[in-house]
C-alpha cells in the first residue's frame, strides 16, 4: 500500500478512537477529572525518523485541528501537537544516539527498543498533556493540580500507546492492519 495513504488511514483511525473511545473514559471519583489521556499523539511519535520538521509540523497541526474540531475545543490540541512535533527531533536525538540506523524506519518498540520507546513516549506525552491542560484551563491558578493531571494522563496515555504498539506493530515495522 502507498506509504502516505497508510499514514492518513492510521491518523484517521487514531483520531476516531480518540473521539469515540478515549474521550469517553469513565472513571471513579477524582480520577475522572485527572485522567484524560490523548492517544492520537502516537501518530506524531511514530512518523518516520527522516521526516522533515516542516512535514512534522504541518501534519501535527492538521491532526490537532481535526481533534479540536471533533471535540469542540478550538486550537488547544493543535497548539500542543505542534509543540511536541517541533521538539521531536531533539527528544529522539536524546534517546536514539546510534546514527547508523536506517533513517527511514518509524520509531517503535522494535526499532528503539521497548525501554527507550517507553522513555520517549512518556517524555513526549508529558510535555503534550502539560501544554494541553494549561491551555484548557488557561490559568496558573492551582498550577500543581494541572501538573498532577498532566502526569497521571501521561502515564495513562503511555500505557495505552505501548499496548497499541505491542498489538498492532510487527517486527518488520509495518502497522498490522
Amino acid at each position: 500500500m502507498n506509504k502516505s495513504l497508510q499514514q492518513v488511514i492510521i491518523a484517521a483511525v487514531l483520531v476516531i478512537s480518540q473521539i469515540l473511545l478515549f474521550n469517553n473514559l469513565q472513571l471513579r471519583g477524582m480520577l475522572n477529572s485527572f485522567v484524560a489521556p490523548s492517544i492520537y499523539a502516537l501518530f506524531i511519535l511514530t512518523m518516520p525518523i527522516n521526516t522533515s520538521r516542516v512535514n512534522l509540523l504541518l501534519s501535527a497541526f492538521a491532526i490537532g485541528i481535526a481533534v479540536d474540531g471533533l471535540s469542540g475545543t478550538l486550537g488547544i490540541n493543535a497548539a500542543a501537537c505542534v509543540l511536541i512535533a517541533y521538539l521531536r527531533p531533539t527528544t529522539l536525538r536524546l534517546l536514539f544516539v546510534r546514527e547508523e540506523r536506517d533513517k527511514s524506519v518509524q520509531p517503535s518498540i522494535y526499532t528503539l527498543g521497548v525501554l527507550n520507546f517507553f522513555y520517549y513516549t512518556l517524555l513526549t506525552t508529558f510535555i503534550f498533556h502539560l501544554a494541553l491542560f494549561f491551555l484548557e484551563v488557561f490559568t496558573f491558578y492551582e498550577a500543581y493540580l494541572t501538573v498532577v493531571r498532566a502526569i497521571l494522563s501521561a502515564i495513562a496515555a503511555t500505557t495505552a500507546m505501548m499496548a497499541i504498539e505491542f498489538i498492532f506493530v510487527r517486527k518488520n515495522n509495518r502497522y498490522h492492519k
Partner: protein
Amino acid sequence: MNNLLKFILRFHDFILFLILEGAAFALIANSTYYQQTQLYSALQITQNYFFELLSDMAEYTSLRGDNAALARENARLRNQLDYYVNHDTAKTVTRVDPRNGKLYTYIPAKVANLPTNKQNNFLILNVGEWDGIRSEMGVISDNSIVGIVINTSAHYSTVMSLLNRDFKISARLKRTGYLGSLIWDGHNYQEALLTEVPQHVKIAVGDTVETSGYSAMFPEGIQIGQVLSYETKKGNFYNIRIKLDIDFKRLRHVKVVRFTYQAEQRSLERNLNLVKIDE
C-alpha cells in the same frame, strides 16, 4: 534583503513553528462559546448519530435504575399534589403565577452526549429551537440542576454543564437561607463548591444546598446537594464543598426549564444596564 532571505531559510523550521503556534493561539483567543457551539452544530449530523446510537445502547443497560428514579419522582410528585389538594393553594406563591397559571414549564429531553472528564464540559440535548428551546434556559434532572442552555440549532441544543469551570449560579443554604455562588473547581464530578458565604453564618455538615431562584433560569428551591466540608480561605468567606445529588454518569433524561417571562425580565435587566451607562 538578501540577509533576511538567508535568515528565513536558515530558521524556516522555527518560523513555521511560530506561525502554526500563532495560528493555534489565535484560534484559542478568538473562540467564544458561540463559535465553539457553532462548530458543534456543523458536526452534529454525523456526531449525534453516533452518540445517539451509543446512548440508545447504554439506555438498555440502565433501564432498572431509570425506572427506580421515575418511580421516586412519581412518588414525590404525588406527595406534592396531595399537599396542594389538601392545602389552600392561594398561600403558595412559588412557581404559580397568580394571574394566568404557570411560571415555569418543563420540556423533557434526552442527553445525546455527556462528557464528564474535561475541565469545561458541555452536554448535547436532542431538543432544539423547534421544541421551544432558547439559550439561557436552565436544565434540571429529576432531582438536581444540570446546566444552562448556551446555544441551539433546529433539533439540538448545547448545554454548559455544571461540570464546567465557567459555570456559576447563585445558590443558598436551605436551613439558614444565606446566599452563595455555586461553582465547579474541576476536581471531582461528584462535588462542587459554594463560595461567597459570609463567615458569620453557622454551617453544619449535611446541610442542604438549593437554588435561590434569583437567576430565573432555575425555579426556587431545587436541591443541589449536601455540605460535605467547609473551610475559610483568605478573606471573610467560606469555601463550602458540596456533595452533588446528581450523578452525571447516569444522566439520561433531563428537563429544560422555560421561564414564562424570560424575555420580559431580560429586557428589564437590559434597561437597567442602559440606565447605568447613562449616569
